[in-house]
């Protein structure tokens, strides 16, 4: 039994679950893995938009759960990469359209066929959240160094049963951390008491992912791409230092925040 299904969750909306799922998935595929991304946000689907695959959706996870298609028909292969597949959510249904048991079966099926499965969880802690975690072995909890996000992450951590959970700290602004206007990554780690999988600085580059369907991790020339590659390698179990290699202003500040993070 492979333990390779990860749910990407947060509690708080808007902290970057979908962006993380997309970019981490791309980074893993670029490392040669076979990756399946599942959008569990039925009724408010966005993972397809963020990946730029919206136009190719024919079947979705609800069709699969209700037996209207086979697994391979509900998977869209990303033509830009070898080994990245998306299973989209339905837009014209709501969260009650699938049961936890159905989602577990879908996750189980994908777990057998792929190296890594990432499930993009909806915001909140309601039915949609429970559906998304049903088939997951581990959790990736995305948060921001901001009070409301941390509070919600804390609540979420208490709802994951005994699954291993690691943190992705998103939208870090090193200059604000220095001036005391933002919590540091160390603070976040202390409060939530979990290991950190990755730290992502606030960078307008990410908007290309969110608004244009071009995940930033696709392009090795982009600064953020390196961040997601590091995150992917850490997910795969490599003991990689999180601090990025660039040395322009903002990044050296980030580096100094991360020195000593493992």
């Amino acid at each position, binding site marked *: 039994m492979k333990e390779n299904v990860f749910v990407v969750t947060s509690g708080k909306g808007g902290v970057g679950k979908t962006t993380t799922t997309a970019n981490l998935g791309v980074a893993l595929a670029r490392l040669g893995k076979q990756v399946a991304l599942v959008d569990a946000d039925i009724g408010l689907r966005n993972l397809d938009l963020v990946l730029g695959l919206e136009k190719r959706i024919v079947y979705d996870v609800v069709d699969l759960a*209700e037996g209207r298609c086979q*697994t391979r028909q509900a998977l869209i292969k990303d033509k830009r990469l070898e080994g990245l597949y998306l299973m989209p959510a339905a837009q*014209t249904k709501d969260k009650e359209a699938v049961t936890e048991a159905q989602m577990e079966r879908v996750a189980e099926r994908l777990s057998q066929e792929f190296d890594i499965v990432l499930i993009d969880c909806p915001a909140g802690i309601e039915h949609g959240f429970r559906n998304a975690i049903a088939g997951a072995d581990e959790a990736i909890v995305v948060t921001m160094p901001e009070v409301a996000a941390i509070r919600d992450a804390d609540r979420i951590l208490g709802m994951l049963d005994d699954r291993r959970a690691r943190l992705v700290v998103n939208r870090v602004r090193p200059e604000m951390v220095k001036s005391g206007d933002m919590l540091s990554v160390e603070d976040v780690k202390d409060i939530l008491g979990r290991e950190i999988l990755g730290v992502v600085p606030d960078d307008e580059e990410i908007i290309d992912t969110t608004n244009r369907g071009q995940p930033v991790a696709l392009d090795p020339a982009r600064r953020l791409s390196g961040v997601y590659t590091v995150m992917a390698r850490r997910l795969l179990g490599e003991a990689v230092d999180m601090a990025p290699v660039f040395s322009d202003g903002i990044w050296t500040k980030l580096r100094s925040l991360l020195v000593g993070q493992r």
Partner: protein
Amino acid sequence: MPCNGGREAPTVQIKGTKSGLLLHLHERPLTAVVAKLRERLAALPQFYRGGRAVLMLGDGALESQEVEGVVATLEEFGISADGAVCDSDDVAEAARAAGLRIVAASVAAAPRVRDDRTDPADVRRAWHEGGEDAARSIARRSGTNGKPAGGGSGAQNCYYKGTLRSGQSLSAFGSIVIVGDVNAGAELIATGDIVVWGTLRGVAHAGAEGDDSAAVYALRLEPTQLRIARHIAAAHGEAKKTRGALTPEVARVLAGAIVVEAAGAPPRQHASSR
């Protein structure tokens, strides 16, 4: 593609849905599948009686006689075969020759005329109180959802004034006319034509039961995806954002592919006129 479809499905899968049975009949030869089907049905001979079933025939080669065999077996147990979902043209032909109508998977799932957008106020309120199930049961009671699939003569064309928002869907046996926009994330399914007097940004499926001569018209045609009968097309490149002057267009199937042309140009040679 790491997925192996063959390994996954048991030989005969019978799924019950709110609209009837879905029979997964992807494996070949179909005659062997029929034997398994008979076994399954014979175990509970009265259970399915009076129901309707949609056959999911996949894309493996088969003959129309084999399909007829399935239909006959179902009839023995009082189940009427109501249509087939086919993943290839050859399979669709065989199914048609056996007398089955061809349906899209989405239509198979929702074969009744269903208009999510123009819920009367009580249905909308029911949704707010109890979610999808409550809304559906109210709709059934008040008769707003209606006719059984394939039953009744004549089309039920749908005329709707207003904008269809993301997540809303409209399906009809007949043609659909919308005076308003169809936003991205919204879905239209019609057995006939689709006409949008506004901007079409969502997904439109015309000729949903296999009518290749169906067309999609819009004042602004910027759909996420267009489907006519079994053809599917997505726009190239980024979504265009047109402002100012409207450019009415019509999408049709020509020589096996979906083609978009400016509305008002005389239509090129077609197999049938509507």
